[in-house]
């Protein structure tokens, strides 16, 4: 029931938003819906040990072997929680940003939220595919309507990339469906009898969709442009939440469904992700636009998650779980700060800014803490995740290149220090110039939002154990389902 509410509340709230007229009403209403969703998510986390509240099943297209089946396991609940936290933060963080036709903007935002919740909760391949596409459409309209100057071609590139990826995934899903007795249910997918050869080419069909979404190195070219051109609120959703759709796809719909294919082919994506980490990090410190810098840094972070996923180790899996959440929170913080800076000074170009820390000390403090988290300094949340992932990759038993991946991926962490610190230097430190000299500090709502982010960063960095305990069950079961040793024993 709670799982259904997680989708329904933003869906109905979003549809209702279309009919509101006044801007203040729209903002208050959408914030109310977002907070309500957050409360539902808290309820969901609190009953995580009682799965009967967290699943919902209804008949739907029975002749296709598809039921509307949604369930919040710990991973799904965690990502729903991330989504539910993100939206109020985004709405408050961009409270003062003016949007033309605000009712359409906020309505589409809430619809996108509903779509993403559906992706995280779907336990039926067809339902998963439906939500996967439905989350995309509002994002496309949002970015194309309210984005920057080059928004139309850029967003279209984004749309075509993801559309091709998801259609290839659809073919893969239909093929698996045809081989497992005509059921789209996730358990049937986990037990499908596919030959090694079939798994090997199906792997690429499914991986195409997830690789575009995450994105993994050669499929990433849509991402910096899209992040730059989309309005920052949308960019925040794209990078904090939508990227996790790709990672969740890997963990839930690729590794356990095609264990042999992933085992045989796993080194290819890992290798691509490894190239992506170094490549994106190097490109990141050539950027002048803050949004593009963060976009490239996101490629590096997600690349590490991809390698960890294919390392199929306990430590790596736990690392991904915590890092999915941490990366979402950290990058969300960065977007809120970038949004505030852009609104205050009218530019995102680092070369035109400087000395912001003198004028806005609270903003600077928030930025520095979030930056430390992004470069995964100890006592921040990302340190836990990245350490666990690197450890898992290093000790991986399914790949013989674990050491190489771990070493190269670690350079990504070092490179992240270079570009993040240079951003801090250019924007916050140094002397003020004529643009920044009249700057003011952030006001209370913004402080509150950033404060929440800082608290999450520090708490999870110092004491991650409850979180890890919560994720342990799902990590184990995913690993077990993806483990081919286990498959051999079963036969």
């Amino acid at each position, binding site marked *: 029931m709670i799982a259904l509410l997680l989708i329904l509340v933003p869906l109905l709230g979003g549809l209702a938003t279309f009919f509101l007229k006044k801007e203040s009403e729209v903002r208050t209403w959408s914030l109310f819906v977002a907070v309500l969703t957050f409360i539902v998510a808290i309820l969901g986390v609190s009953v995580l040990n009682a799965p009967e509240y967290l699943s919902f099943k209804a008949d739907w297209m029975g002749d296709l072997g598809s039921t509307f089946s949604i369930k919040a396991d710990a991973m799904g609940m965690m990502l729903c929680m991330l989504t539910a936290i993100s939206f109020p933060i985004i709405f408050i963080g961009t409270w003062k940003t003016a949007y033309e036709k605000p009712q359409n903007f906020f309505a589409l935002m809430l619809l996108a939220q509903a779509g993403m919740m559906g992706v995280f909760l779907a336990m039926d391949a067809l339902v998963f595919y439906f939500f996967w596409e439905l989350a995309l459409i509002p994002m496309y309209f949002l970015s194309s309507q309210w984005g920057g100057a080059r928004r139309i071609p850029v967003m279209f590139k984004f749309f*075509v990339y993801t559309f091709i990826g998801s259609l290839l995934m659809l073919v893969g899903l*239909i093929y698996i469906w045809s081989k497992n007795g005509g059921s789209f249910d996730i358990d049937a997918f986990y037990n499908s009898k596919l030959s090694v050869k079939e798994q090997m080419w199906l792997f690429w069909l499914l991986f195409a969709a997830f690789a575009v979404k995450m994105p993994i190195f050669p499929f990433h070219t849509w991402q910096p442009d899209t992040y730059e051109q989309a309005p920052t609120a949308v960019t925040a959703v794209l990078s904090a939440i939508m990227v996790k759709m790709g990672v969740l796809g890997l963990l839930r719909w690729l590794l356990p469904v095609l264990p042999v294919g992933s085992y045989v082919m796993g080194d290819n994506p890992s290798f691509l992700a490894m190239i992506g980490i170094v490549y994106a990090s190097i490109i990141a410190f050539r950027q002048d636009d803050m949004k593009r810098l963060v976009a490239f840094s996101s490629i590096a972070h997600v690349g590490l998650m991809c390698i960890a996923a294919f390392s199929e180790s306990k430590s790596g899996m736990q690392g991904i779980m915590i890092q999915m959440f941490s990366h979402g929170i950290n990058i969300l913080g960065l977007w809120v700060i970038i949004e505030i800076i852009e609104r205050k000074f009218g530019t995102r170009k680092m070369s035109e800014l400087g000395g912001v820390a003198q004028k806005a000390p609270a903003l600077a403090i928030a930025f520095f803490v979030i930056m430390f988290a992004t470069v995964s300094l100890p006592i921040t949340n990302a340190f836990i995740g990245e350490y666990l992932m690197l450890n898992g990759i290093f000790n991986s038993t399914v790949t013989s290149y674990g050491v190489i991946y771990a070493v190269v991926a670690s350079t990504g962490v070092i490179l992240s220090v270079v570009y993040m610190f240079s951003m801090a230097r250019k924007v916050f430190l140094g002397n003020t110039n004529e643009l920044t000299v009249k700057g003011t500090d952030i006001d209370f709502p913004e402080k509150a939002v950033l404060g929440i982010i800082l608290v999450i960063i520090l708490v999870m960095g110092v004491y991650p154990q409850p979180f890890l305990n919560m994720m342990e069950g799902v990590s184990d079961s995913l690993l077990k389902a993806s483990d081919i040793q286990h498959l051999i024993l079963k036969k």
Partner: protein
Amino acid sequence: MNALLLSAIMGVVMMFTGIWVKRYTVIKRVALAGMALLFVANCIELKGTKWFNFDVSGFMQFNNFSLVFIAIAIFVTILFTLVSGTEIRKVGNYPADYFALIFFIISGVILLASFQNLLILFLAIEIVTIPSFILTGAEKRNLKSNEAALKYLLLGSFSTGVMLLGIALIYGSQGSFDINQMQIGMLEGNKISNLQVAGILTLMFSMAFKSSIAPFHFWTPDIYDGAPTVFASYMATVIKVAVFIGFIRLFENAFGNLSSTWVVWIAVLIVATLLIGNITATFQQSVKRMLAYSSISHAGFMLFAVFAMNESAHEGLIIYAAGYSLATIGIFAIVAKMNDYSYEGFNGLARHQPLIALTATICLLSLAGIPLSVGFLGKFYMLKAAVLTGKYIGLVVFAVIMAAVSAYYYFRVIQAMYFKEGPDNFTGATTVEKYSMVAICALIIILGIMPGVLLVHLYF
């Protein structure tokens, strides 16, 4: 059978209405009442009550599949009349005759969906195409319309000749026009004669011509462009889909046993159609021509039904027929009401006509195959049917890549409507037309969520 006789009668009635009644609204209402009567009669037959009991067993067979399709065709015709009533009057001075021709087309469609004999197939194709020649040239004073009609007539007669040749060859090898006899004659294991192969291929190519499948598609864009837009939309939907129904009926029932000899040709036609239709559509500057090419690319998807020939293909063809017809009727109705058919003509439509832009968007999303629309389910069933055959998975992958290409040109219209600025080129729609458009969108979404409401009639 109910609807067949009534539609022929209604055609004659409409011709006389044209003599006695001069007011267009009355003519339209008579036509709509006739269509509603056909629809009801057909649904009653679907539920098992036959009004006319003639023994036509050697010539026609009405099963659920054909009756459901006939219901869809008539229903789409009703929506078509509702949504573009104004445009039909604008075409020329003889609206009653146009409706008479449409009723004759419907009777041809009914024959196409239920023939059991190659003679009836030939008659059906002729009954469908000859009125559409006239409708293409209905705009008498427009040279483009005349040219299109002549072109269509010449090419159409040529392909009819090819079809007759195919029928003759098949008759020569089988000694019968009856499809059931052929199935017995073409059992697996029997020696296949060259005559049979030549006959099957000739029939395949002539059917491909009639349903505008590449490389036999060259007439389509010119005819659709030249014909009055209203009638182009009717030809692109009901007529085209009906030819497909005839296509699958012929190849499954008559030549199904020999599918191994010709299915590879179907695969080649699918690849050619998807490739040529989609790639050419991306380069069009006029939305109307783009829709003509997109109708070719949809033919490629519908051809998967002939390729797969299983239960899923039947369901898929029904869903695809409904989805494609609804969306195409909807978008064509909007295009017909535009002053400017180019992409730029659509700039800023969302600001001036939010409702029209929204309906256009839903139709386009359905054509592009986005989930929650019936267009997605149509594609899904087709892909499913093809995957279930277990061969040529590469063909399916190719098809989805082409589906992604198709998103390009559909989204260009959406981009123009929502994200660009321009003058209002929309000439206005009456209230009935607006409600009908909303109804089309509602149907697209309802069928997209619950295809069962339509498919259940295939079995019960």
